[in-house]
């Protein structure tokens, strides 16, 4: 004998409260992530920074003195800063956003301390003869700043920071002869790759 069929269609039970709460939190996070792109770092600017870093790595590898090598990278840091600042201004104007928005300020304040630490440690290590430690230190501290600064930004940014940190850890235990290749892979390759992702996914 066949099973009796229900007279009324079975009611679908409402989702549990905690599932609704989790869904609401997810919605808030995704909305914030989506909204944050208006003030995020320019992906195209990062690509440009990556290209200059690759050029700097090539020039630095041809230097015969460590002082010459350091100068190449210091000039590249200045050029990268100017490109990044210019690209942020360009992107903010293009999307009609304030340069001093909360995510922008938060990103800058989080990025600044590790960069400052790197700027202070560089002459100390250089003049004490620990030049081999510089590539790892730069990559690691820059990555740290990007991870902390990008904690409230789109997911791509902290992931980029973690990639820099991983490369920095590798650089710290690598032979000195690899230094320019690792810096080219980090400040060049990672900036280009993540810059393209940011520009493609989040505009500019």
């Amino acid at each position, binding site marked *: 004998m066949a099973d009796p069929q229900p007279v009324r269609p079975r009611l679908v039970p409402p989702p549990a*409260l*905690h599932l*609704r709460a989790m869904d609401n939190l997810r919605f808030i996070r995704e909305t914030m992530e989506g*909204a944050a792109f208006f003030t995020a770092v320019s992906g195209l600017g990062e690509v440009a920074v990556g290209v200059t870093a690759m050029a700097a790595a090539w020039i630095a590898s041809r230097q015969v003195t460590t002082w010459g090598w350091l100068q190449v990278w210091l000039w590249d840091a200045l050029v990268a800063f100017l490109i990044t600042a210019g690209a942020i201004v360009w992107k903010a104007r293009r999307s009609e956003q304030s340069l001093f928005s909360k*995510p922008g300020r938060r990103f800058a304040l989080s990025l600044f301390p590790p960069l400052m630490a790197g700027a202070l440690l560089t002459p100390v290590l250089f003049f004490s003869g620990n030049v081999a430690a510089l590539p790892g230190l730069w990559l690691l501290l820059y990555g740290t700043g990007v991870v902390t600064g990008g904690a*409230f930004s789109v997911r791509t940014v902290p992931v980029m920071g973690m990639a820099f940190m991983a490369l920095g850890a590798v650089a710290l235990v690598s032979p000195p002869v690899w230094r320019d290749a690792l810096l080219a892979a980090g400040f060049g390759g990672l900036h280009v790759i993540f810059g393209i992702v940011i520009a493609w996914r989040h505009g500019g």
Partner: protein
Amino acid sequence: MANALKHDGGGETTEGSEMAVHAPAPQTALDLDRVIHERMRLGIVSALAVNDRLSFNDLKKLLKTTDGNLSVHARKLEEAGYITCEKYFEGRMPKTEYQLTSPGRRALERYLDHMEAIIQATREG
């Protein structure tokens, strides 16, 4: 809470006139701030929480909604004192910009705490 949560994701028709202005702060774990509990308004407040100000068009693109829907929900948030609206002309183009107020930010923080408390209670239970 169950009653409050039934409004989730609903539009204007689910709310009635009871929640027009100044929803009181939650008194118990079961009271939700219904002004921002509605999805579109929660989206507006969340987007403004990470930006100093956003234009009407930016919000519309971000929340993938229509002019009318966004206007209605933004007005409710404005009436509750959670956001402010500034209208001005840029050349001949009228512009509208929204900003989150301190009560609006506190309301979002309370709402986040509320959601986390629900999840926590379920885990402990």
